[in-house]
């Protein structure tokens, strides 16, 4: 079993890279074949990720040295519980989104949807696997350039306008990323994250100011990706302007920022970093609490369902990062469980909103009273479920996630703030979604007539995909026991980075120090 693990690690990168390039070169004009290749790639990635999770769940940390250059000189790919979990989440989400795109024909609305999608997966998988800070930058660029293409998929004036803002802000973010990496390299002389952790732990007091500056600049960049207030302004515009399919995939994009915050926060700035330990926490927690409030209050400012979905993604990032920012082992497990939930729930909401918008003719997804539309009852039910999911009411996994977070942060001194924020914003979220749902489904039910639908591609298949994402939330709640065991073990592993460092640097380091 374990002999195959290095091959599996590379397969998670090679597969989308090669298939993406081949689709671009050979299958440019053959949509059917592109779809088969894309779906096949997504399915294979689910298999690879599941095998990696099965391996990592035993607690082993595996590394793969690219080109057989040993750490810290070469670039290392590392799989621990967190990386494996994020890979599985990405591949499951990608499979659902790709099925939806194929079912509803969203992939015909522009060029090169399938290659861009594969390159996006390459960037995401790479960012979750790499153990090298500069390589993380490169994979961020890969996933960003693919996301620029996907964001603009289908084009249109509003989408281009939002696209310019999204691209410019991310380019500035990339510049800052290089500043942070440069500072840390200048002081520690390494780019390998595990090696950097060892060197920061042993850094002389004179260097600590520079290390703190570099690490905080990096934190700002990751906070920008994670849409933490006050760096969130790009998110609602970009998510609401793009196609729902792409927005659903982008539910994982903010989690890349959260992943990077968790990884650097626990590995490089962990408790062994001496005076620099948990450096970012003081800034992250207030920002995360404000993000939660802004996200859920923003729901009331929304004029369309798509806006609502975008704001609720922001709010759920706030909840997630509030739990991360206390940097306690008992809060990290729930935060990771909530990561799984909020990604799938956000994606499901975007897909359901798209299904509704397609059936309402010129009314689209605007929050207006309009005549009934086809499959109104069914979609009403799905909207109800996805709203329950994203807000965090029982019986779906959002409730369990929030409950675990509330329990996990109990020992933190800031617990009262987090409790108050999460409980009040949940109520606000319920009100906002109840208002939207009653206007679109109940008040509209009294209006005479129905909205005729033109030839609707994939009327049932699209509904099926959205329903299966919601079913995954049910599964996440039903199998809450095994999942939380895994996420809690992940948290324990994160807060004890010696194993990770040993896996990357080899026996000679004997872990830390």
């Amino acid at each position, binding site marked *: 079993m374990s002999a195959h693990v290095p091959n599996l690690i590379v397969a998670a990168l090679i597969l989308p890279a090669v298939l993406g390039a081949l689709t671009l070169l050979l299958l440019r004009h053959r949509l059917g074949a592109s779809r088969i290749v894309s779906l096949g790639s997504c399915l294979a990635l689910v298999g690879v990720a599941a095998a990696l999770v099965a391996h990592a769940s035993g607690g082993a940390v595996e590394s793969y040295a690219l080109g057989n250059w040993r750490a810290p000189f070469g670039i290392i790919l590392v799989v621990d519980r967190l990386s494996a979990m994020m890979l599985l989440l990405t591949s499951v989400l990608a499979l659902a989104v790709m099925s939806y795109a194929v079912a509803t024909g969203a992939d015909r609305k522009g060029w090169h949807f399938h290659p861009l999608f594969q390159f996006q997966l390459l960037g995401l998988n790479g960012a979750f696997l790499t153990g090298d800070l500069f390589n993380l930058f490169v994979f961020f660029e890969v996933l960003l350039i693919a996301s620029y293409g996907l964001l603009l998929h289908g084009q249109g004036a509003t989408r281009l306008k939002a696209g310019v803002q999204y691209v410019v802000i991310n380019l500035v973010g990339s510049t800052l990323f290089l500043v942070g990496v*440069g500072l840390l390299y200048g002081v520690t002389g390494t780019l390998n994250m595990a090696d950097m952790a060892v060197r920061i732990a042993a850094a002389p007091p004179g260097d600590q100011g520079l290390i703190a500056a570099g690490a905080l600049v990096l934190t700002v960049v990751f906070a920008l990706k994670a849409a933490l207030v006050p760096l969130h302004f790009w998110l609602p515009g970009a998510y609401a302007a793009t196609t729902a399919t792409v927005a659903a995939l982008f539910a994982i994009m903010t989690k890349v920022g959260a992943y990077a915050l968790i990884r650097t926060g626990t590995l490089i700035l962990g408790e062994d970093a001496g005076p620099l330990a948990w450096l970012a926490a003081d800034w992250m927690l207030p920002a995360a609490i404000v993000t939660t409030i802004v996200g859920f209050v923003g729901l009331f400012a929304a004029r369309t369902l798509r806006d609502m979905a975008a704001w609720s993604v922001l709010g759920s990032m706030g909840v997630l990062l509030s739990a991360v920012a206390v940097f306690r082992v008992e809060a990290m497990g729930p935060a990771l469980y909530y990561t799984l939930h909020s990604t799938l729930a956000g994606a499901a909401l975007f897909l359901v909103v798209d299904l509704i918008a397609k059936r309402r003719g010129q009314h689209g997804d605007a929050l207006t009273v309009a005549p009934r539309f086809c499959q109104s009852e069914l979609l009403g039910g799905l909207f109800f479920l996805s709203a329950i999911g994203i807000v965090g009411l029982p019986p779906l996994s959002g409730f369990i996630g929030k409950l675990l977070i509330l329990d996990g942060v109990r020992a933190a001194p800031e617990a009262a703030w987090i409790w108050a924020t999460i409980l009040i914003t949940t109520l606000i979220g319920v009100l906002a979604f109840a208002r939207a749902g009653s206007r679109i489904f109940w008040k509209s039910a009294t209006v005479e007539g129905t909205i005729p639908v033109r030839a609707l591609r994939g009327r049932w298949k699209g509904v099926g995909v959205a329903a299966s994402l919601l079913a995954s939330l049910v599964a996440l709640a039903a199998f809450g026991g095994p999942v939380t065991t895994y996420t809690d073990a992940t948290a324990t592993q994160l807060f004890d980075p010696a194993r990770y460092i040993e896996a990357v640097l080899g026996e000679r380091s004997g872990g830390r120090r």
Partner: protein
Amino acid sequence: MTMELLVASAIAVLTAAGVYLVLRGRTFPVVLGLAFLSYAINLFLFAMGRLVIDRPPIYDKAAESYTDPLPQALVLTAIVIAFGMTAFVVILALRTFLETGTDQVDGREDGEAQP
């Protein structure tokens, strides 16, 4: 000492110009600002390997000491990425101007009300 001062102030001026231009309202200055920022960053990364004169970055029998080769590789990567991104932003900005009829970053001409 002079070299450090020169390099540091060059980075500072480039960054200042870049930040100012990025904050402008129209897309063309913003693109120029991004280019300035990436120049500043390239110099900065280069300086992170310490400023040394007349030292080879790769193995040489006759050399007594070396300069750090890694930042040079990083700068090379950063240049390639920044170049590609700049080309992309230029095309995107042009396309947006043609579709929306304005080259304001926020998509509205001055004084135009919120839609």
